[in-house]
């Protein structure tokens, strides 16, 4: 006797091979869930690890402060603050930039680097070229996004408008900075590589250009281990108050880092919610499919029992079987997920996060978790099915399952049967006799369809958000900011510019909003209540006028971040001038999907700041076709600092997230498609196994292949059709979960499902059903008619 394997293990291998189609389809379901998990978590882990390493290696500061002007001697007092480790002063200035051949307005941030030696903090990672030559007057290093946007290389020349004068600059290097991983122009919402750039210049040259010789207007510091951040900030504020300090802030409020954190938080949410949904649904489907598959083994379980195999031994056999399937699925899902994860990380690196390198990281824990969840779902399904079958006495188990009591179906009771052919009546009976099975099949298919809808939901939602933001709320063509607060009279000049149709001024001031123990640092925007360009919207997206004497908050800011309600008194610390704190009533809530804002009437804000008609910027409506002309005019005005054009903002928004969404949609479609097909195909195959003997007998009696296919696939078709509307409900539910989970300061997703989403949900069912039908049709051709004759029934 030369049997190396236990006969049951042989049976296992043969069964696996025999059912390879189904095995692969089940593995596809697992793969879909696992790949989502691995992709999301590995991307999150990779980006987080990379960020931490980059911050540490390039010494990102922990405290930042901006001020008007302080002599270098003041730095000594800052350095003496207990807890400060390293401290570096610098000069920074917002500038307008010009690049040959690009006519749109470009704003930039010029930062000084020491002329001697490396920066102590926020060091640059040089990607190309070199650092600026000490004491050179016209050399700059540019951020790599800006270089990429304009294809700038070392040696190229650009110009900056410094203090109203055009200055030619030579690009000598391209760099990435931990301080500007995420680059966004102040006042704009999305990165725009072409229209915003960060430049580094020698301290001497920059100081000379801005009258900052021997002085600084920006300071950053790292802290000693265990130092108390808030204490250091308070001491800094005390020292810098005399020098026009606008409040030091910790790393967590640093612009790039805050966005990076928010993005990573989003990614983490995604890495939790999406896999939870995908893996959860996959696990449910796995459980259903496996338990039905095992239920088919009822007779064999009875035989093994009859020979004296104990329940545990039988259960172990089937558990081994499904574990093979699980391992195949998890392995495929891990490989695919890792591949997608790299792709996703690359998309992040290209569109949003500028790290000099990426530490791609796939934690073993992630794979183990995927394995554990899948195994749990599969094994529990197996055990339930095995024990249900093993509970029967072997004599019972070896008989085919007794059908439940024959009774008239609804159709027959309604007297509709004469309209149905015998095969159609069989379909109706099958579905009605096993309602639980039919319901689970419908639910399973519906879940796959829901997943497809979740995966494709983002695009429509983003279109909707952009529409609300730019066509209902911020309808201006151009938003510009002045170099400093300016008299409202400047608006008349703007209105008089050729091509400008309408002008509305605004006054914004940095502030900290507080309510009870909640606080948020934000710009307080004073806008014109009767404005037609920049408007607040109510819940139904109708414009509302901001009332006088109080603030109107974005719903998320009010209800989630500050937890205030209309009527509550908000404490507002103005971070400008004398830094007064005032109490203001919350007068309204505005619906806003992107970002969070606090609005007031401009006049109320002017009053609060004890100033006259002062503006810090303006919203412009421009005659279509004359934008370039208006840009050129504004560009020449020294008081105008930055301009953000809505049309280009939208374009850059789509450019940024377009790639991301495209990638994501593709991945979700593939995975949801795999899951959908896996479920539908298995339902069809299991139905074939369950009904195979009956169908073969019908063939023996003279039914054609078409006729028996009608009985089998007709049932599947009915279930699939019912699953389509159910799937839409599941989709809405899953998207609802997503919407709640993704709520954040950066954006809130609207619960919007487009016709396209519904169509995708239905398509995955229809395509999977057709494909499965085709495969099963082939199987029907191979039905073992002789086998039926050989044995009983």
């Amino acid at each position, binding site marked *: 006797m030369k049997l190396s394997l236990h*006969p049951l293990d042989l*049976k296992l291998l043969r069964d696996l091979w025999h059912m390879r189609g189904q095995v692969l389809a089940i593995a596809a379901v697992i793969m879909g869930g696992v790949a989502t998990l691995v992709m999301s978590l590995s991307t999150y882990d990779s980006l987080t690890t990379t960020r931490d390493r980059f911050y540490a290696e390039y010494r990102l500061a922990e405290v930042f402060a901006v001020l008007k002007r302080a002599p270098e001697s003041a730095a000594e007092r800052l350095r003496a603050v207990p807890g400060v480790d390293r401290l570096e002063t610098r000069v920074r200035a917002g500038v307008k930039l010009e690049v040959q051949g690009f006519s749109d307005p470009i704003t930039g941030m010029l930062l000084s680097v020491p002329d001697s030696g490396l920066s102590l903090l926020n060091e640059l990672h040089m990607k190309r070229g070199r650092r600026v030559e000490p004491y050179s007057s016209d050399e700059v290093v540019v951020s790599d996004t800006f270089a990429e946007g304009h294809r700038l290389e070392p040696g190229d020349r650009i110009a900056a408008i410094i203090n109203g004068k055009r200055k030619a600059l030579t690009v000598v290097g391209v760099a990435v900075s931990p301080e500007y991983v995420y680059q966004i122009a102040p006042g704009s919402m999305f990165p725009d590589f072409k229209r915003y750039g960060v430049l580094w210049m020698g301290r001497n040259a920059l100081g000379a250009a801005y009258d900052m010789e021997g002085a600084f207007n920006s300071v950053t510091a790292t802290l000693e281990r265990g130092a108390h951040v808030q204490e250091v900030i308070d001491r800094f504020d005390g020292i810098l108050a005399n020098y026009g300090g606008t409040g030091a802030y910790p790393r967590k409020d640093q612009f790039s880092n805050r966005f990076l954190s928010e993005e990573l938080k989003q990614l983490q949410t995604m890495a939790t919610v999406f896999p939870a949904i995908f893996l959860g649904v996959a696990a449910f489907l796995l459980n259903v499919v496996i338990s039905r598959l095992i239920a088919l083994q009822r007779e064999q379980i009875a035989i093994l029992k009859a020979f*004296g195999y*104990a329940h545990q031994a039988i259960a172990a056999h089937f558990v081994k079987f499904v574990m093979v399937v699980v391992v195949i699925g998890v392995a495929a899902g891990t490989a695919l997920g890792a591949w997608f994860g790299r792709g996703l990380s690359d998309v992040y690196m290209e569109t949003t996060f500028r790290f000099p390198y990426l530490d791609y990281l796939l934690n073993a824990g992630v794979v183990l978790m995927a394995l554990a969840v899948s195994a749990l779902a599969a094994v529990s399904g197996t055990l339930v099915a095995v024990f249900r079958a093993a509970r029967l*006495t072997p004599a019972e188990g070896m008989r085919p399952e007794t059908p439940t009591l024959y009774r008239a179906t609804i159709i027959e009771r309604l007297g509709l049967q004469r309209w149905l052919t015998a095969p159609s009546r069989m379909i109706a009976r099958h579905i009605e006799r096993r309602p639980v099975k039919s319901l689970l099949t419908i639910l399973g298919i519906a879940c796959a369809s829901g997943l497809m809808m979740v995966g494709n939901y983002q695009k429509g939602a983003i279109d909707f958000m952009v529409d609300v933001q730019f066509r209902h709320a911020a309808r201006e063509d151009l938003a510009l900011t002045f170099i400093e607060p300016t008299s409202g009279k400047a608006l008349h000049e703007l209105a008089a510019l050729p091509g400008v149709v309408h002008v509305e001024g605004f006054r914004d001031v940095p502030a900290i909003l507080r309510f009870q123990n909640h606080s948020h640092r934000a710009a307080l925007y004073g806008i014109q209540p009767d404005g037609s360009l920049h408007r607040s919207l109510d819940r139904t997206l109708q414009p509302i006028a901001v009332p006088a004497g109080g603030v109107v908050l974005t719903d998320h800011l009010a209800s989630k971040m500050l937890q205030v309600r209309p009527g509550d008194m908000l404490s507002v610390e103005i971070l400008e001038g004398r830094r007064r704190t005032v109490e203001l009533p919350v007068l309204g809530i505005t619906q806003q999907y992107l970002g969070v804002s606090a609005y007031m009437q401009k006049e109320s804000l002017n009053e609060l700041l004890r100033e006259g008609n002062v503006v810090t910027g303006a919203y412009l409506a421009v005659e279509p076709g004359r934008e370039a002309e208006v840009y050129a005019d504004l560009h020449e005005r020294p008081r105008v600092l930055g301009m953000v054009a809505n049309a280009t903002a939208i374009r850059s928004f789509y450019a940024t997230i377009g790639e991301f969404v495209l990638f994501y949609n593709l991945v979700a479609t593939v995975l949801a498609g795999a899951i959908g097909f896996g479920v539908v195909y298995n339902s069809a195959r299991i139905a074939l196994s369950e009904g195979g003997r009956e169908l073969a007998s019908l063939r023996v009696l003279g039914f054609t292949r078409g006729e028996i296919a009608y009985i089998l696939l007709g049932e599947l078709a009915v279930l699939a059709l019912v699953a389509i509307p159910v799937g839409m409900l599941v989709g809405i539910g899953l998207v609802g979960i997503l919407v709640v989970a993704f709520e954040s300061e950066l954006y809130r997703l609207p619960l919007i499902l487009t016709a396209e989403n519904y169509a995708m949900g239905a398509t995955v069912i229809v395509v999977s059903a057709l494909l499965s039908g085709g495969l099963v049709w082939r199987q029907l051709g191979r039905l073992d008619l002789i086998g039926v004759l050989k044995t009983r029934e």
Partner: protein
Amino acid sequence: MDIAEQHELVFRARGLTKIYRMGEVEVKALRGIDLDLHAGELVVLLGPSGSGKSTLLNILGGLDTPTAGDVYYLDHNLTAAGDRDLTLFRRDHVGFVFQFYNLIPSLTARENVAVVTEISTAPMRPEEALALVGLGERLDHFPAQLSGGEQQRVAIARAIAKNPAVLLCDEPTGALDSQTGVVVLEALEKVNRDLGTLTVLITHNAGIAAMADRVVRLSDGHVVESRANATKLPAHALSW
């Protein structure tokens, strides 16, 4: 003199009743069976179709439980035994041949036998058992590649391979021609003789009754006759 009486009592059934309920309809398969079976006996169970033969055999073998009544195997009460004990009982003591063979389709003839020998204490080799039923040449064929009678013989090889104390066979020769049938019966006879295995054999073929020590006749769920066979013939002397 009844030879069975000299031997140890193996099965003792009292008042066995089995009622199948299907909704409103009740089928009384067994209506109070009293039966004693002894070690080493070869018992043939006769009776018309539907008289309850398979049902009785299943209950004796611990495959099914009666609606009422008791079965003792030696001093173990099978009716009171739990699933675990019944499993051990079957594993250690009983060889089955089912009326419908019940082979595992994904295993070859040899492997179908090995499934049982793997968990027995002193089995024959699967090849040996298959040779006994004349299937030494078809070891590596799957059930689907065998004729109905060949499948039946695999089922018999599977039952005798573990050298059981009790052999329960439901129409073991139903699908076989007279010549092959005799080969199979000889194999059963050999096990019965050499090991003293209590063998219960259901058949519709009254001719086979000639090889029995005792013939039990069932009708409509009752034992209507139990008689010792005065002139026991060896299997090779039978034909039909």
